[in-house]
């Protein structure tokens, strides 16, 4: 490798490392300095990264770059604490330990230990997903704080601009400071409820990445990856490695196993029945199976169990025709009973089509209310009519579907379907 491409390689590696480690370091430093000092924690991390870039630009990366980053960040934090340059007074369980030379350095070292890093990340997750802030704010804050994404990158991912994201982060942090939301694990009685809020938000984050056909696909895949990384983190800690956490992780594994087969070379959507199952990621499917097994350790059934169960049936079926539709229908029945969600009802109707015939599916779909402006509803209905040979009705619904999508890939898919009806 020549010097130029070597430098480029280094820059890329640093970039990846930066994002991974920035999230960890911000979580730890905020844990130490307290939430009101989160911006200073970010400054320390930013400074650390800049130093690394400056030094590594001219030479090789150290063998353990993350250790180098931690050491630099630790030294900065220690220096600021010693010189009393922390902006807001530190008020937490570490206050006294940070005040004494006996314990200052050992405390900082301790906080940068592997388990403490995870602990800090989880505390941060609980704070970011506190019920008093909206889900949109929760996702933004998670991406900024725990995943190390810049406001620009977050803006890109959500088709929003940098300034809007910046403001949202600022307001959310104000809220957390105002409400004095602590960086703590919730008490045991509240744990289930608070974990639920985290899992819902991570699932939403995952779906943001998975479902949309955003022009910048890479960023979208990053969202899925980050959501999975944080879910894995939850499974690694005793208090949060509950059955529902494993069920969500299993679901994510099954979904991502199909990542590379959902779009063709031109970025057009390939439907489940047409996907090349040989290209599904078998490693992720086996991980999904493993996590689904782990999710059955308790008596309670969570929606995620049912959703993961459905995804598992698809992932493990040899072909579309050999899918166990009856079992899937049973899972949808239960899921609908619990959620009463129109989207679940819609999906359930499509499974009914496979089990009991498309006419029955059509009757169910036609009876549904509230989905009149849903693209997926109309395209599904169009597809059912196409299958039963009622081309005029199929055309009508595909036409409606076109009105309710903003995605190019979806538009193209529906156009092709429409053409089939001519």
């Amino acid at each position, binding site marked *: 490798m020549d010097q130029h491409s070597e430098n480029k390689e280094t820059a890329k590696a640093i970039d990846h490392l930066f994002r991974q480690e920035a999230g960890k370091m911000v979580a730890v430093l905020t844990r130490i300095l307290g939430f009101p000092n989160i911006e200073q924690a970010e400054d320390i991390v930013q400074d650390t990264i800049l130093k690394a870039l400056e030094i590594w630009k001219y030479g090789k990366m150290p063998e353990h770059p993350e250790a180098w980053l931690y050491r630099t960040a630790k030294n900065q934090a220690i220096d600021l604490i010693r010189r009393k340059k922390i902006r807001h007074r530190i008020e937490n*369980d*570490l206050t*006294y*330990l940070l*005040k*004494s*030379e*006996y*314990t200052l350095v*050992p*405390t900082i070292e*301790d906080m940068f230990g592997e388990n403490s890093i995870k602990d800090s990340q989880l505390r941060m997750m609980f704070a970011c997903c506190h019920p008093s802030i909206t889900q949109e704010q929760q996702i933004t804050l998670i991406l900024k704080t725990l995943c190390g994404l810049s406001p620009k990158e977050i803006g890109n991912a959500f088709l929003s601009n940098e300034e809007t994201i910046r403001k949202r982060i600022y307001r959310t942090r104000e809220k957390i400071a105002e409400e004095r939301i602590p960086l703590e694990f919730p008490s045991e009685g509240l744990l289930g409820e608070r974990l639920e809020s985290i899992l819902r938000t991570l699932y939403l984050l995952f779906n943001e990445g998975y479902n949309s056909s955003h022009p910048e696909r890479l960023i979208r895949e990053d969202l899925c990856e980050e959501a999975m990384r944080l879910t894995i983190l939850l499974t690694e800690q005793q208090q949060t490695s509950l059955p529902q956490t494993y069920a969500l992780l299993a679901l994510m594994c099954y979904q991502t196993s199909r990542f590379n087969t959902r779009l063709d070379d031109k970025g057009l959507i390939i439907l489940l029945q047409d996907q090349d199952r040989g290209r599904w990621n078998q490693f992720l499917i086996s991980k999904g199976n493993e996590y689904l097994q782990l999710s059955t350790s308790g008596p309670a059934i969570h929606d995620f169990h049912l959703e993961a169960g459905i995804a598992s049936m698809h992932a493990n079926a040899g072909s579309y025709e050999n899918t166990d539709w009856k079992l899937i229908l049973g899972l949808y029945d239960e899921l609908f009973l619990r959620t009463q969600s129109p989207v679940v009802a819609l999906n359930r109707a499509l499974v009914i089509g496979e089990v009991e015939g498309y006419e029955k599916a059509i009757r169910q779909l036609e009876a549904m209310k509230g989905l009149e402006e849903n693209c997926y509803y109309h395209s599904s209905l169009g597809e059912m009519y196409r299958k039963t040979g009622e081309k005029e009705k199929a055309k009508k619904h595909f036409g409606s579907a076109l009105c309710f999508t903003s995605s190019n890939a979806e538009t193209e898919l529906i156009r092709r379907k429409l053409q089939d009806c001519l």
Partner: protein
Amino acid sequence: MEKFLYLFRGGNNSELSPDALQAHLQKWQEWMMKLGKAGIFVGGEPLARTGKQVNGTKKVVTDGPFVEAKEMIGGYMLVQVKNMDEAIEISKGCPILEVDGKLEIRPIQKMGEM
């Protein structure tokens, strides 16, 4: 809750091998951290072995303190506990005792009760 001062005196650290010294310092950290996390430790610092002394009305500055090594104060710590009995009990875990040092416990005098 009452406050007490621990004064750490003496202790033959200098006779330890580098490895043993390392292990000994580790014990100190662990002990301090344990008290810190339990909310007992509320302050304190280790002290350097050198310093100055300012004396009497003439404020004469001399090098010092020149006391015997086994009397030298190596550090102090403020703890918050129920009473003297608890302060004594907790002090027994202090690693300085393992190297033949001394730990002096002094209640904080509440002014006005003198």
